[in-house]
């Protein structure tokens, strides 16, 4: 598969969903792209630094290339319990 044809699912929870305006979206990406770049492209007005991100259900750096990622989750400060 060429990088340009790759797709992942972006999940937005809680406050992040309100800002994104979606809870789930399929997005084309380049494996060299980082979560920060992808978010800047997707949500130019938002500050990605306010969220943690999880790549394939593990917390991940905003600045590591997405590589083979299938799922990117936007995780605002948690408040379970």
């Amino acid at each position: 598969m060429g990088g340009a044809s790759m797709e992942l699912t972006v999940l937005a929870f809680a406050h992040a969903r309100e800002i994104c305006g979606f809870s789930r979206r399929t997005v084309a990406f380049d494996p060299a792209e980082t979560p920060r770049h992808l978010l800047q492209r997707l949500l130019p007005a938002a500050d990605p630094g306010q969220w943690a991100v999880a790549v394939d259900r593990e917390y991940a750096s905003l600045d590591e290339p997405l590589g083979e990622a299938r799922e990117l989750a936007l995780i605002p400060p948690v408040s379970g319990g």
Partner: protein
Amino acid sequence: MKAVIQFTPDPIEVPPLDLPSREIGAVLEFHGLVREKEGEARLSGLFYEAYDPMARTLLERHLAELGQGNPIDEVLLIHRLGWVPVGEASLYIRVLSSHRAEALAFLAEAVIRLKQDVPIWKLVKRS
């Protein structure tokens, strides 16, 4: 250590206790209830959501790690999701161990870790 994690949209019903051995000396249970006051506001309830598979995986890992330092026999953790009215439980944890100190330490740490990084959120309004 046996660890069971459940998410449920329904009111939490505590499963009957089935002692795994005759060496259980402590059964510690915690219900976390939704309170009416949240800062200045008065609530009628809270809406909870979770990133289920990740929340579950992280909780499993936390509980397993805590079991290393605090040898317990069994833990059951139930988190309710969706709308939870004031006075009802959003969280239930039951810890079984030989001695109470381990159960108390385990329970205290489990809630801290849950609140630390497990992707569950309470929302004042359903969004």
